[in-house]
């Protein structure tokens, strides 16, 4: 109960090609959890944003994907880890329009709105870990 997933699937995030594999794995996990098309799309889109962040801002890293359960529901947890420079001001990074690059500055804050649980652990120089969890609406 309360999660207790099996060993997570670990995928590298080192190249644009890896982003495609992360999205595919996210879709497969979302389907396993019985998510609707809309729920799947939100999960895949959030994973795409966070994987790209790890690649572009974190200099690459990895993602751990787990099937999770709680009474009556199934879900997916994805943990994105990088060993990049870290985010000095997480609250500011979550603000829409904040960007250190040439992007839209919506990635991190947007990803948070696409999932149900969202946590950022980051310290300058120690890298960044972003954990997201989404649950399927349909009962198990």
């Amino acid at each position, binding site marked *: 109960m309360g999660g207790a997933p099996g060993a997570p699937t670990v995928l590298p995030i080192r190249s*644009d090609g890896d982003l*495609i594999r992360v*999205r595919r794995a996210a879709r497969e996990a979302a389907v396993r959890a019985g998510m609707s*098309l*809309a729920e*799947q*799309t*939100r999960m*895949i*889109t959030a994973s*795409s*944003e966070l994987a*790209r962040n790890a690649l572009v801002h974190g200099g690459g890293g990895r993602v751990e994907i787990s099937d999770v359960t709680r009474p009556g529901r199934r879900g997916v947890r994805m943990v994105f880890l990088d060993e990049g420079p870290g985010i000095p001001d997480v609250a500011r990074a979550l603000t*829409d329009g904040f960007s250190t690059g040439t*992007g*839209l500055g*919506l*990635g991190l*804050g*947007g*990803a948070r*709105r*696409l999932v149900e649980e969202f946590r950022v652990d980051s310290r300058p120089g120690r890298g960044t870990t972003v954990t997201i969890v989404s649950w399927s609406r349909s009962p198990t």
Partner: protein
Amino acid sequence: MNDGAWNTPVSPGDDSRRAAAPNGSGARPHDGTALVAEALRSRREQLAQRWADATPFRAVYVAGRDAAVGAAHRLVDALAEVAGSGHCADPSAPGFERVRPQLAEMLAERGAAGATAAQLGAEVAELRHALLALVRDHASHEGGDAGDAVVAAMELVGTLRLVAMETVLDRDAGIIARQRQEILDTATPVLRLWDGVLAVPLIGTLDSARSQVMTEALLEGIVEQRAEVAILDITGVPMVDTVVAQHLMRTATAVRLMGATCVLSGIRPQIAQTIAALGIDLGGIRTRSTLADALAWALRHIGAPAGG
């Protein structure tokens, strides 16, 4: 005592032009590499004749034995040049460069005939056996150290294999790059739906490369067809994240700069939801839910007669 001899071309003809040995002063003893170079030069014809009968040449140059002998001559000359320069272990030695196209052709031919890597290895071994026999024979006649010569010849053949492998990898990399470009081109067709109305049905992930190819093709199409409306249909795009949205917005901006109007169609409900949740503002782009709606709008916009 043989120093003079191995600097002197033994056989006449064009071989004499490449007779330069690494040193002529006699400061260096009769080493293995020099013996190999000498063997390749003085017994050029003998080796070429044997190689022409070995599988790699016989199976490739099926038109006639003369062609096989000619090709074998070129490879013998190339190896003689490499050994003569003393760079038996260097795949970028000038001698190898000259036979790369021929090696690529031979390997492509064998590959097309279905030869496996193991078979190709056995075929190269045929060439090696003939070369080693020749080098050993030459060394014993000339009084050199046959052991050193054989080691040098092995090294030379090993490097030749490496060069051959490189030509295969180069070719494969070229094929992959070409196929990738072909996929990009075919995956983004620009369709003329009506006089002055173009559409691009996008399918799959819209990455930077595809987005660029698509934009270029669309802008060219707008100029060629004097189009007033360009429809980007994303029915087949599985996900729109901030980067994909940015690509779409850039394309729309470029279309507008060309004096045409861009319409985005095929936005499915789940895509609309994620775009809204991400906070992306597509306000600058005209949108329609289906391609049919977009075409209907385009026809009104250009003032086409309403049809049934």
